[in-house]
């Protein structure tokens, strides 16, 4: 006997599908993507990355995302069990620490690990690259604060004047898109920053739906997929055969962020917050390019007029001494030709000079302790 099939109404099918889609889309508002980032194939199926994911170049199998948990979950730090003989050193900083144009082995962390030196009762130093391009002390504090759960024995914080201006603190997209974390830092460390600064991205309800956050979801997935390529190739950055060298001939400008003086305009409280974690910390004023080209009597390089940089060095040295910080001023460590495409990016040899000094610094902090 032929069974009677109930006729299917395509409009009802479409209506139901549309309703379910809407429901799913808006239910996503209540999903917190941040902890989802902890679900990672890195350190399980794929080895962890030697540095944070950054960049938007498909041919380097890398991407920038704003999910700090996902960034950490993809890092080798998250997958390395700390052994009793490991002396865990976390390197915090900008693109010069992350290693623009450098392979993981050529970065400061890579070169420190290659030294295979031990400190503090013969514990082997293992440095982790937690540098992240974009310049802002708040960005660095945010990473440092999150990194504390990985049992560091020491933090080496490499910084430069460009990270200090108060008006630059939220310019890093990583900071701007982590408003909630930034507010927590402001409250916790009582930072002199505006928690309602319009630069901090406030997602609307629509921005929090699935459609609104499709990019963030796709980034999480893409980060995992790129894990296969990172494992297969060991490449996480595009290395051009040729690039524009850092500027040597400079403009005859004394301007630095429109400031007359640095006094009162630098985020020293942010620095102080990072220095007060209770973990031994070595603060390093990183090397900069000191130009001998046109107008080098006015500026050191593209970033810094001499007056501002000199004042910064003086201020930082005074502040460090006043607070009793471990401080290394390595500003003039590398010769001009050891910089690559920027006044703060070193060549592999430049990094080796820096690594030697930082290694000495780590040993000295350890001894002092």
């Amino acid at each position, binding site marked *: 006997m032929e069974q009677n099939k109930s*006729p*299917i*109404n*395509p409009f009802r*099918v479409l209506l139901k599908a549309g309703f379910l889609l809407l429901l799913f889309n808006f239910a996503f508002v209540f999903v917190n993507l941040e902890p989802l980032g902890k679900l990672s194939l890195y350190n399980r199926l794929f080895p962890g990355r030697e540095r944070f994911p950054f960049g938007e170049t*498909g*041919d380097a199998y890398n991407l920038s995302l704003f999910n700090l948990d996902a960034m950490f979950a993809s890092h080798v730090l998250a997958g390395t069990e700390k052994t009793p003989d490991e002396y865990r050193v976390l390197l915090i900083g900008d693109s010069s620490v992350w290693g623009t144009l450098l392979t993981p082995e050529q970065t400061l962390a890579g070169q420190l690990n290659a030294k295979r030196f031990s400190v503090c009762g013969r514990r082997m130093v293992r440095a982790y690259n937690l540098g992240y391009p974009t310049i802002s002390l708040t960005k660095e504090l945010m990473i440092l604060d999150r990194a504390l759960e990985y049992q560091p024995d020491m933090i080496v914080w490499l910084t430069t004047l460009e990270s200090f201006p108060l008006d630059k603190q939220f310019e890093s997209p990583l900071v701007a898109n982590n408003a909630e974390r930034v507010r927590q830092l402001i409250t916790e460390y009582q930072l002199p920053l505006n928690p309602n600064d319009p630069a901090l991205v406030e997602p609307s309800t629509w921005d929090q739906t699935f459609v609104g956050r499709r990019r963030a979801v796709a980034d999480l*997935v*893409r980060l995992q*997929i*790129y894990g*296969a*390529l990172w*494992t*297969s*190739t*060991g*490449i996480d950055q595009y290395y051009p055969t040729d690039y524009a060298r850092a500027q040597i001939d400079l403009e005859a400008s004394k301007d630095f962020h429109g400031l007359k003086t640095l006094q009162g305009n630098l985020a020293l409280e942010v620095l102080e917050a990072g220095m007060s974690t209770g973990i031994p910390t070595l603060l390093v004023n990183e090397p900069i390019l000191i130009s001998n080209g046109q107008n080098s009597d006015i500026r050191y390089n593209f970033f810094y007029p001499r007056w501002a940089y000199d004042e910064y060095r003086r201020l930082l040295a005074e502040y460090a001494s006043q607070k009793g910080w471990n401080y290394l001023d390595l500003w003039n460590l590398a010769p001009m030709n050891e910089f690559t495409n920027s006044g703060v990016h070193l060549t592999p040899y430049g990094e080796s000079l820096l690594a030697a000094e930082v290694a000495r610094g780590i040993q000295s902090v350890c001894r002092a302790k």
Partner: protein
Amino acid sequence: MGLTQIAASILTSILVGALTRGAQRTYSLLVLSLLALYWFQPVVPLRSFDFWIPTLTIALLLWIWFVASQPGAWKTKQNITGLLIIIGVVVAVDLTRYLPEPAVTSSMPPRFILLAAFLLMAAGAIVISLPFSRRFAWMLSLVTILLISILIVLKSPALSLQASIFFRTLMDRPTETASALDLRWLGISYIAFRLIHVLRDKQTGRLPELSLPEFAVYVAFFPALSAGPIDRAERFVKDLQQEFVPTTEEFLVAGQRIALGLFKKFVVADTLALVALNDALAVQGNSTGWMWFHLYAYAFQIYFDFSGYTDIAIGLARLVGVKLPENFLAPYAKPNLTQFWNTWHMTLTQWIRAYFFNPFNRWIRGYKFLPAWIMLLIGQLATMLLIGLWHGITWNFVLWGAWHGLGLFLQNRWSDFAKMKISPGNPRAQNALKIGGVLLTFHFVALGWVFFALGKPDLSLRVFLKLFGVG
């Protein structure tokens, strides 16, 4: 086809399927297909070429219809209507140059006077060639050769580059920036094969009389424009001529097929594309295991990409009452290479079998002194080389074709040997043999993709060495 184009195609197909009947449907599909020729055409760096390339497709299509149709066929009401629609669409697209933004093409169409001159020349060429085509049978062969020549130029990077330089010189543009990719001609591989099929069937008297609108829709049918399948004209037109009553079931089946295709293409294939073997990974990949991973990813990416597009095409066509032929039937689950080729890009294989392999085999059998196995080897190699060259005239496609030609030959020999020497055995042994056959066939095909995926033989060699742990 991108997502926007697919969405627009779904919407217009639903409207055409639901609202039009009989000849109206054919005319609507004609307009849509012609517009799709312009809209889907990728942008090319030569000025207005994204208009001229589709226009040339339409001119070719018209010319071949006139050449292949009965004398005076154009005078029927249906054909005159079709002709007016075709000219009307071309002129309308050109007139969009007077809108603030190009509405159909990617860049500004040319001045109307240029189009008028082109139309006059095209009409002149058709009028002059018609008496020849009626009187001399070789005229159809000549047109076929012309189509093959176009394909050869477009598929050969060196010739394509020369053609680009030629056009750039003609247009007084710098030739230093010329590239082989300058002349990307949407769907020409499929369009040319449809046209050649029509010409060959006309020559052999197998082609039924087709009206101009039906013929034009067959050649430029928008769902099958960019990735096939290659239907047969008489089968396609039968669908067009049949009364199409859109039912709920029909729309649901079509919808499911499109959804499946979208998932295959835009979720599975596009994800796999991120990790699939390519020229860069051929150099950068540093371990045997991961190289196999990239190769598997490529094997599945190409399958899901291509079969996904086919699903979308079949689904879209069903919305307007056309049942396009299947192109893939689980090819990676087949226990031998012959069965793989009977289920992978089936319409291309069938085309090649009908218009090359069978005639070629008949021809070579004339050389009676050749042993049968040599004839088979030559036949398989020639056929697969042709399929390889259809994808592009490069050494890697030649190697890919040769790989499969030899594979088919060896498999054929083995089958003959096995039939005679190996007893069927118990069902368990048969199953094991079948599974072994599937795995072997899949890996043979996957290794063949090493040639297909990469640009140069030295890269392929490098990958082969890495795959087998050497180098």
